[in-house]
């Protein structure tokens, strides 16, 4: 059963083509990692899934529904959640208000339930419930960003570089949580530069290079692949 399918997706920024026909499939309940160097088009791929910018050709199918031409707001309300690159929490709002924003289209009871769940995953957030989010450390902000994305009770969560700029210990913690999310039945699409950790966690992986998928295999096979090791894992 596939959750998200990209079929030969091309994306343009003005006249420049950033994705030259990318096909990716994410099945229900798995963790799929997308790795690639700077400028390979990882973030563009995610943004295209979210409909900003929209794909210039190809199809994007979410749970059997074609969302290629759907507006961003409606895509983001259809069971998919994204943790954007660089966290992008609302720094002026409190932790609790940030979480509530995540469940904007949910009922009050659901918000309460999902909020408790987020606090269970990240007890640190509970401690800082009424603090301005911008005053927290980078790791706590990343936890908040993930917690906020979970507030809409998504079937699938997309994480864009969750390890960016975090201490190794915090990265380990974040990856543990990502594994835990899969155990809860949430499909995870993980985009990372930190190839080692991303691939060891993933069921399957894709390698993106200059807007094209170069390789696709199981996470373990990619980790063992000599080309991948040379290019992304430092030999």
């Amino acid at each position: 059963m596939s959750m998200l399918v990209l079929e030969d997706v091309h994306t343009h920024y003005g006249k420049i083509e950033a994705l030259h026909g990318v096909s990716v499939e994410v099945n229900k309940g798995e963790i799929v990692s997308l790795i690639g160097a700077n400028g390979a088009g990882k973030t563009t791929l995610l943004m295209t899934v979210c409909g900003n910018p929209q794909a210039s050709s190809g199809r994007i199918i979410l749970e059997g529904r074609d969302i290629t031409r759907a507006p961003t707001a409606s895509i983001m309300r259809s069971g998919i959640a994204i943790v954007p690159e660089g966290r992008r929490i609302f720094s002026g709002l409190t932790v609790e208000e940030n979480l509530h924003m995540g469940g904007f289209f949910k009922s009050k009871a659901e918000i309460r339930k999902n909020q408790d769940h987020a606090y269970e995953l990240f007890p640190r957030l509970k401690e800082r419930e009424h603090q301005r989010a911008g005053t927290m450390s980078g790791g706590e902000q990343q936890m908040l960003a993930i917690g906020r994305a979970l507030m809409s009770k998504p079937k699938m969560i997309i994480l864009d570089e969750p390890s960016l700029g975090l201490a190794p210990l915090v990265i380990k913690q974040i990856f543990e949580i990502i594994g835990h999310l899969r155990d809860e039945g949430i499909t995870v699409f993980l985009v990372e530069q930190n190839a080692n950790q991303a691939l060891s966690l993933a069921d399957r992986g894709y390698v993106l290079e200059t807007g094209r998928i170069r390789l696709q295999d199981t996470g373990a096979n990619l980790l063992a692949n000599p080309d991948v090791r040379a290019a992304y894992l430092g030999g």
Partner: protein
Amino acid sequence: MAAQNFKHALFCAIVTLVISYPILGLNLVAQGTQVVLEGADTATLISIVLAAVAVFLFQLFRDHIMGSVGKMPNLNPFANREPMEQSKRQRLDTIVLTLLVIGALIWPFLVSRGSVDLATLVLIYVMLALGLNVVVGLAGLLDLGYVAFYAVGAYTFALLYQYFNISFWLALPIGACLAATFGFLLGFPVLRLRGDYLAIVTLGFGEIIRILLNNMTWLTGGPNGIGGIPDPTLFGMEFGRRVKEEGNTLFHEVFNISYSGNHKIIVLYLITLVLALFTALVIRRFTKMPVGRSWEALREDEIAARSLGLNRTSVKLSAFTIGAFFAGFAGTVFASKQGFISPESFVFLESAIILAIVVLGGMGSQIGVILAAVAVIILPELAREFSEYRMLLFGLAMVLMMIWRPQGLMPMRRIHIELKKQE
């Protein structure tokens, strides 16, 4: 250290000299082959030179001076105080606000007619600033043409009265809704724009409305304005000496008291007070509702807000519309208070003053904005004795505010830190 500042200090001193030339009205006149300085006696010249020297010395040693200022004991005795408990502060807030409202209700009976009139003006600006606070402070959309919606409200009432004889109370919602419609319509083209570009477009819109009002002479009377706009009535009671409109009664006859011109002023003040309170409460309610939080989220981070499924278009439009609604509200009251309006009342300076109130008060903070409205409108009145220097003083006060409290008089609070004691 002083050597590094030398060039800068010299530059500042020269600027001081150059600026004092137009400000003090000096004049260079050619007399034959010589150029003579006119309009200044020796004392003025000496003080200009002294001022330049003072600026030079201050800039030269400013690091020392500012350093020692920093070491001085803090002048604000409350600066290092522990933050109050949330529940206690909320109770205090409620008590202070209730006392303020009661005070504002009793106050007009104790003071002069002029003060009450001024207070009505302040309240109109409070309404305007609270409305603009939604657009600028909460939604983070810089609107430099806010006065246009104010004008729409005022002209709606004036024209409705002139052509259809519609009373204040009926015109109030119509004016506000029409202004809101204009806000909605303006919202569409400006949605793609951000920051500076948005400011320019709204500025243009403000000017378009004013110039339209000025040139549509057949409808608005152009620069001659519209006069004879009636005061509000209170349950069909008028405040004049004689009844103007059939079917109405007279306030002093109904209550069997002698006629006084003060009645009208005081009742107008009270009506404005009620409307300002209504504005404050409604907007306060909005900020606690999801729509208010979505404004703030969009201001904080547009991409994040969109990633959560918020529709950028509808959030921005709602902020623009609601802001414009209350400007229309204030405009109707203004037209009724003045009795005469012309495009002159709706120039860019008005937009700038309202924006200054919002920024001074602290973006997003209601109490701050109300305090700032009081300060900004009353200060120039108090400084009337300084006549031509009062705008200078006003400017100085603004600059000092921005240096000492860049976050505004009372910034929006959201700090609540409870650190657990380490064991």
